[in-house]
């Protein structure tokens, strides 16, 4: 079952990395894209627009390399839940805005609302994979395996060794 984790890391990490990189060229547009959702107070809109692409790139790189997988998977879940809330509320309020998920989103949108279901489905899939990584953060080909070696006596089939161990 280990390969599921590797696939999850590559897919989720790859999507975050692409989403972040595509937003980098136009910080002004990122701010407008965040604002278009009309959910956050204006005082924090620019900060979110400027920080989000960097955060996405970092989460993406960490998941691809397998660094702090559980913590980054938790971040991934939190971000995806926020996006799902954003898109659903845009849908519910009848806003016609571009997702802005992969850059863009600062401008007028034609038939933007028609894309909402597909965007929600995509986020749900990514949410599932991120959730898997929160549950099973131990995967092959991960830097974590070198930094935080597993106990020798633990069953290899149960990679329950966690990054942040809860008190036993």
């Amino acid at each position, binding site marked *: 079952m280990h390969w599921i984790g590797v696939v999850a890391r590559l897919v989720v990490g790859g999507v975050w990395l692409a989403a972040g990189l595509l937003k*980098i060229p*136009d*910080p*002004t*547009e*990122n*701010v*407008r894209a965040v*604002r*278009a959702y*009309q959910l956050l107070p*204006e005082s924090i809109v*620019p*900060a979110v*627009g*400027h*920080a989000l*692409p*960097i*955060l996405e*790139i*970092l989460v993406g790189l*960490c998941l691809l390399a397998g*660094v*702090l997988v559980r*913590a980054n998977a938790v971040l991934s879940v939190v971000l995806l839940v926020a996006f799902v809330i954003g898109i659903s509320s845009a849908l519910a309020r009848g*806003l*016609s*805005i571009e997702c802005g998920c992969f850059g*863009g989103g*600062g*401008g*007028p*949108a*034609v038939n933007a609302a028609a894309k909402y279901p597909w965007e929600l489905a995509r986020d749900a899939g990514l949410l599932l994979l991120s959730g898997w990584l929160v549950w099973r953060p131990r995967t092959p080909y991960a830097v974590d395996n070198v*930094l*935080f070696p597993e*106990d020798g006596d633990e069953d290899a089939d149960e990679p329950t060794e966690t*990054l*942040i*161990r809860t008190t036993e």
Partner: protein
Amino acid sequence: MTKKKSTATRRAEQTAAAERAAAIRKEQERKEKRRRTLVIGGAIAAVLALILLAGYAVQSARDTTGEAGAVPSGVVDEYAVPRGQESAPVTVTVYEDFMCPFCGDFEQASEPMLQEYVDSGDVQVHYRVLSFLDGASDGADYSTRAMNALGVVLDTAGPDVATAFHDLLFRNQPAEGTSGPSDDELIAYAVEAGASEDAVSGPIRDRQFEQWVLNATDDASQDDVSSTPTVMVDGEVIEFRTIDELLANTDAAIQEGLGS
């Protein structure tokens, strides 16, 4: 009997002590490992947080929105190009991008009606031009260049020439995704509208009002304008699904504004 029993007890005690020692050792190892995990994990998290902060600072610095820039003389409400008299009782605000095809459709359809209201002194139109379609001109930033040129024409030749230039640009609107008129062509349109070539060519090429364009676009997004065309009559957004509907509802709102 007691001796034998005590030997067994001692043996049991020794085993128990050894087990306890092993348990303590294991616990210490576990604690040590946990400490190591926290230190390494914390160090990596700290480095990531620093990178995030640095990246955020870079993105903020690259975003010049809101910085002061040259503003064309003759604008109304900071960012609008006026058509008609200020004394007109009704104000129609049109948010549009020179690259937006629906804006071109609206311009074509609404021109006779709005011109009539303007001529009778009932309406002043405020053109709030935006540049959010820069990405749709094949890297040529047509939206920004066209809006900058509009500012230049307003600044040097006044609102009548500027609105004529505005109409010319929409009449010759490029297809979305193409690079649009070059700076030379914009200058030619400006001259055709009635501006002086000497006065406009420098500022059009140097994008004198680029910061104003950026601020105007951001300001529109703060007004919750997320699509173009957006039409407001006395500040009220006109709802529509088709351009015909937009026209009819705008007309109705103007009539209502005049009646009250």
